[in-house]
């Protein structure tokens, strides 16, 4: 068996902090004598999944979104562990069905609205602590570890995408979707699934119903299904006038 390379160092601080702190089997330290630390490197440099070469997005075809169907909403609620609202004023809603009537023509449509994962997210701009942030691949998230619950992001969001958690939550959370009283949350684009190479739960549910109103994919990849559909058919973004360039786009609205 070939042993991994050995390094002797008196000052761990000379090392890359990230390497030093990377825990578990990739690195082990043993104190041989005071001041002398033995370090072993193994494993491979982990790849970060938030790739700046990608931008994840959704395309929602309003014509295919049936008014009576809310499969995506239930799927999201189940996947991410938020209860379907009993009290619509205070309960969290990561995704919601909206029925629309065109004021000028009377045309009725139905669609789903959630965090639009803007390229220029106002929630990220206004967050005082930096808890609201955008990953390199365009997914907008809340870092609940440093969210102080000021709700300024909710004031800033044009889409009402965010919810504030008004009550205690005890041991109901999914491990990939921590949620807690006093912090703000919203659609994560199922980042845990996306990082594992999957698609968001809402898209999966929509496809399963046969409506096929939602397409998920990489907006920067011209060969992706979503990019091809966007290139071929007209689409729009909600509140396009604000210039936020959302990652979620709508067709036939």
């Amino acid at each position, binding site marked *: 068996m070939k042993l991994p390379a050995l390094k002797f160092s008196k000052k761990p601080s000379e090392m890359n902090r990230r390497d030093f702190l990377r825990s578990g089997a990739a690195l082990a330290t043993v104190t041989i004598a005071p001041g002398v630390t033995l370090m072993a490197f193994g494993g491979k440099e982990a790849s970060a999944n938030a790739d700046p070469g990608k931008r994840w997005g959704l395309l929602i075809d309003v014509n295919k979104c049936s008014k009576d169907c809310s499969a995506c909403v239930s799927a999201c609620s189940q996947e991410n562990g938020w209860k379907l609202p009993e009290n619509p004023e205070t309960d969290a809603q990561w995704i919601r069905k909206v029925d629309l009537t065109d004021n000028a023509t009377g045309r009725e449509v139905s669609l789903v609205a959630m965090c639009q994962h803007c390229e220029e997210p106002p929630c990220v701009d206004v967050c*005082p602590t930096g808890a609201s942030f955008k990953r390199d691949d365009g997914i907008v998230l809340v870092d609940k570890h440093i969210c102080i619950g000021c709700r300024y992001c909710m004031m800033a969001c044009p889409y009402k995408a965010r919810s504030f958690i008004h009550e205690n939550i005890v041991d109901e959370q999914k491990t990939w979707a921590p949620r807690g009283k006093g912090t703000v949350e919203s659609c994560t684009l199922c980042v845990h699934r996306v990082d594992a190479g999957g698609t968001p739960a809402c898209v999966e549910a929509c496809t399963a119903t046969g409506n096929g109103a939602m397409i998920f994919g990489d907006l920067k990849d011209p060969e992706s299904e979503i990019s091809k559909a966007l290139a071929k058919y007209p689409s729009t973004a909600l509140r396009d006038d604000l210039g936020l360039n959302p990652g979620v786009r709508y067709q036939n609205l």
Partner: protein
Amino acid sequence: MERMIYREIPANRTILQAAVLLGVFILAAAGAVFYMEEHGHIVTGMNNQIVWGLPHVFAIFLIVAASGALNIASIASVFGKTPYKPLSRLSALLAMALLAGGLAVLVLDLGRPDRLIVAMTKYNFSSIFAWNIYLYNGFFAIVGVYLFTQMARGMPAKAVKTAGFVAFVWRLALTTGTGSIFGWLVARSAYESAIMAPLFIVMSFAFGLAVFILVLTFTTRVTDRKLGPKLLRRLGRLLGIFAALVLYFTAVQHLTSNYWARNGGIERFILSDGGIYTTLFWVGQVIIGGLIPMALVFHPTGGSKPASIILASVLVVLGGFAQVYVIVIGGQAFPLDTFPGFTASSSFADGVVHNYSPSLPEFLLGMGGVALALAITGFGMKVLRILPTNLSDANVGQQ
């Protein structure tokens, strides 16, 4: 004209009674905070549509009034008006106290008040909120130094003037920051406008001066110190001018917004169909907080009576609360236009006016902030030489 002598206020019966009353309010607020902290914001009237409620109304009123309360000192130090000079110390103390009260309310309403340290250690510099944390902390430091220069023996006049000038610029920046919290919100038609910053500045002039007059008249009366009627009249007239300025900026705000077709909805809501918000706007802000105080202080005979000036100050404070309520709550109650050109309905209150009924804990928290500000002011006057013993017109050089 005798020498101006500053003395601590005595702890007489009335002052002790006032202190006990303030203490009760502060304790009640502490109880409300624990209750809200234990149960979460579900026990408040705030929800996912009205995300900022009554605590923010109180906090913003106090923070805005804080910078305005500093005006008297600025007028004396920066603009060289000597009759205001004996009032400068109280002005600086009251400014810091009001800011402390407002910030206490703001911070204790956070979803995670236990993480205040995070707000002090992690900054996102594209956030006006983060800038404001610097502006608020800086305000305490600068006004503290300013107060020190006023009170220290043998301090050259130039030092006072310099500190006063820095404090004056800083307070303008601070209120600009507070107004911009709203002005920079692109999403909400009730706010997005550069006028929010100057509007908040004139609001601060009016609210701060009104609170200042009330604290000054109360304290001089209960400590039997002289307060010249001409000096008070001068303050009253200034208050009238500030009240008029608030009305002017409010008019410009709504005229501009009305001119934009896309803002027709929100303007109709605030000005005519908004129920409580429309009432608070016209009756609360415009009539009670603007027109009546102006009539009181500019009245040819009644305008010089202390009672009219005190009443005008009370009305400006009440009107100010109404105005901040309309801005903060009214601006959120009107539905966001997420789907322009469509009528929307959903389970998340799209397209409908949002409900908000403030709860008792919220009110107690807000009142606790007011009580804290007044308690700090009173305590400051008790232990420091803030208030002159004789503010008669002859003594302050008021003709």
